[in-house]
């Protein structure tokens, strides 16, 4: 029973609800010897006053709490340093618990970070943005963007059944579950806005339809088994292609596409352009392209027809005091499309417009377009006529309400009326223009008047107009 280890004397708990006690009297001082069970001190609690017997024999080595002090139950009051027998060692410590391992919660799952050049604009695809836990899990496991899945649940949400059917049907989702514009910032060299012969006035390479400026996160498919038959070859769809496919489909599903066409006698523009070419090139290093003229005239006309520059948002019509004019640009080798936007085109004169167009074309060619460059358009001009076609029905770039298609300028025999009212046949440079508009917002008459006014501007271009 002899021990040299120090023994603690603690404040006892005199009753279940007692939490503290007061020392009323120490019977021994530091240095005094005491026997086990001999009274060492007296205490007072709520319930009772009592003596505290020493837990061991030994010499009092420390007194830690003085008479009159109140301390919590279990507080060490004094220590006995040990020579001689100790009736009892201090109670064994309770077994220590193994340290709980802190585990870092697994970080993000699901959405990958959007590629930075991508344009992220998310039109509400389904009626509700809510994705249930099981759908989120399946989507993450399969690499599907749930917002790309048609939903039949309440409010249009995607149900577990919906996403399972989507997977089972082998539907090809597009890019990874990220908000990425399939229109990558790395287009191949687009056709420069070089005015070709009248046959090819278009600065932009043929872009039959509005490229997906506004791009949803195109869903990426898990590998779905597709087999080539004899004589067939398979190649994967690029992210851009998938994005385009998706956007085209969505646009046609959203807007009520109607196209009206008008023929424009561009002879005057041709003349003026000839005159300005030298001046622009030597003075400003830029070409006065047909596109610049058309763009200038369009911007002016849009001022009078705001709905063509407008948007349906929810159940409201949005009209704008600015024109952010997008120009469709084809990427080389048919890789895809991109539509850089000239912001606040209404502030540009002809020269400014020509310069802006040249600049974005260069940046597109050099793969230097930023997400900002392709975002925020309010109207788009596209030139499907670069290869000689005279008519087309482009697809509107959502959420816009219209897109202007320009076509080949062709020399044609034309009936002209002279000042005296006599008709004669002349050779004129005729260009077809189409306005494809969203009939939800724009009616035929409105569109017709827009085109009439646009033609007037182009046919009556004043020499001094810029």
């Amino acid at each position: 029973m002899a021990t040299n280890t120090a023994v603690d004397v603690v404040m006892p708990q005199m009753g279940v609800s007692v939490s503290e006690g007061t020392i009323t009297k120490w019977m021994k001082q530091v240095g005094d010897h005491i026997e086990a069970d001999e009274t060492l001190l007296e205490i007072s609690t709520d319930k009772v006053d009592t003596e505290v017997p020493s837990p061991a024999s030994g010499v009092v080595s420390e007194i830690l709490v003085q008479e009159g002090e109140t301390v919590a139950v279990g507080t060490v009051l004094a220590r006995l340093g040990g020579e001689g027998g100790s009736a009892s060692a201090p109670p064994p410590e309770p077994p220590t618990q193994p340290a709980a391992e802190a585990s870092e919660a697994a970080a993000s799952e699901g959405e990958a970070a959007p590629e930075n050049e991508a344009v992220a604009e998310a039109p509400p695809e389904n009626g509700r943005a809510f994705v249930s836990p099981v759908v989120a899990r399946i989507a993450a496991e399969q690499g599907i963007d749930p917002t790309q899945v048609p939903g039949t649940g309440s409010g249009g949400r995607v149900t577990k059944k919906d996403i399972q059917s989507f997977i089972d049907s082998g539907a090809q989702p597009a890019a990874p579950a990220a908000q990425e514009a399939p229109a990558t910032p790395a287009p191949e060299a687009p056709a420069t806005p070089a005015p070709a012969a009248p046959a090819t006035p278009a600065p932009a390479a043929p872009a039959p339809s509005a490229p997906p400026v506004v791009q949803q996160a195109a869903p990426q498919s898990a590998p779905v088994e597709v087999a080539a038959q004899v004589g067939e070859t398979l190649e994967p769809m690029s992210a851009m292609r998938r994005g385009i496919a998706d956007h085209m489909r969505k646009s046609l599903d959203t807007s009520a596409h109607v196209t009206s066409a008008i023929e424009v006698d561009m002879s005057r523009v041709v003349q003026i352009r000839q005159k300005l070419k030298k001046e622009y090139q030597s003075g400003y290093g830029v070409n006065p392209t047909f596109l610049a003229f058309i763009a200038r005239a369009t911007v002016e006309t849009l001022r009078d027809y705001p709905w063509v520059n407008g948007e349906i948002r929810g159940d409201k019509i949005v009209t704008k005091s600015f024109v952010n004019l997008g120009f469709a640009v084809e990427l080389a080798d048919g890789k895809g499309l991109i539509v850089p936007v000239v912001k606040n085109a209404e502030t540009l004169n002809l020269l400014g417009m020509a310069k802006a167009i040249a600049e974005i074309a260069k940046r597109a060619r050099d793969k230097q377009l930023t997400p900002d460059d392709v975002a925020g358009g309010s109207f788009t001009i596209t030139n499907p006529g670069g290869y000689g076609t005279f008519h087309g029905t482009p697809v509107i770039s959502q959420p816009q309400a219209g897109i202007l298609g320009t076509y080949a300028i062709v020399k044609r025999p034309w009936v002209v009326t002279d000042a005296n009212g006599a008709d004669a046949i002349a050779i004129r440079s005729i260009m077809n223009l189409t306005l494809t508009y969203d009939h939800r917002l724009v009616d035929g008459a409105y569109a017709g008047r827009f085109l009439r006014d646009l033609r007037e501007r182009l046919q009556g271009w004043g020499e001094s107009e810029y």
Partner: protein
Amino acid sequence: MAEKTYLQAISDGIRGEMRRDKRVFVIGEDVGVYGGAFKVTLGFQEEFGAWRVIDAPLSETAIMGGATGAAIMGMRPVAEMQFADFVSCAWDHLVTVAAKQRWRAGTPVPIVLRLPSGGGFSGGPFHSQNPESTFAHIPGLKCVCPATPEDAKGLIISAIEDPNPVLFFEHKHLYRRIKGEVPDERYTTPIGKARIHAEGDEVSLITWGAMVYTAEEAAKQVDASVEIVDLRTVMPWDKQAVLDSVRKTSKVLVLHEDTRTGGFGAEIAATIAEEAFEDLDAPVKRLAAPDTPVPFSPVLEKAFIPQVDDVVGALKELISY
């Protein structure tokens, strides 16, 4: 194999055990001469005598305390509260002594407490309750709630075999109304294992007791594949079976006749939310009686006990979510 009522199956189960093991005895009010208020022990006293089919005084304490002491001394009492509602008079010995004796003193208490429970026949507030959640909450007790005659016999035998206090909730409204095929031989139904009453893959309906039949009717009236899981045991409950079903269907309705707040469905729903969150395609739904005592008048009782239409409504909501 023979077709038996739910009541007959229970009676046969107990009788078989009493013939087989002389430690088994029955104690309760009016169980002997009268054969039990519901006639579950009809004919027992004639066969086994007055010291194995004991007509206790009107004292749930004497019954419960008596059964506890006898079980500690090696007997296998099958005690009865005449109605489950009277268990509150026996609460102390059940919860304070029987439930805790094994854990704290190493002494097993192998008793069965039969509790005729449930409503649907204007029994009123004191003859219709389903108190299983109260006792599921007490560590040391087991609670079984058979729905079919076959399970009733198998579970009463398992309960008698089990070395723990087992509360056997026999639903009064099933006694004579429900018949089924019951094997003649002795068999046990495992305590703690659920049974798939109907297979399905669009909605899981978790329930027990008389509600199994309400669920069955309701499932016929919806245009969806409903999986009905009969828990059979409320404590310990077959969590795995429930989670497996939820994983399959991703939509779940928990149904019980007991009142809603703190009813055992709450424990099931919380567990599903904790452990199957990523399998859910809809919030976990519960359907239960409202938080009132059981009403007496048939009109009120119908508004209290979940009806087939109520279940149909809940299922439809889930299906269309």
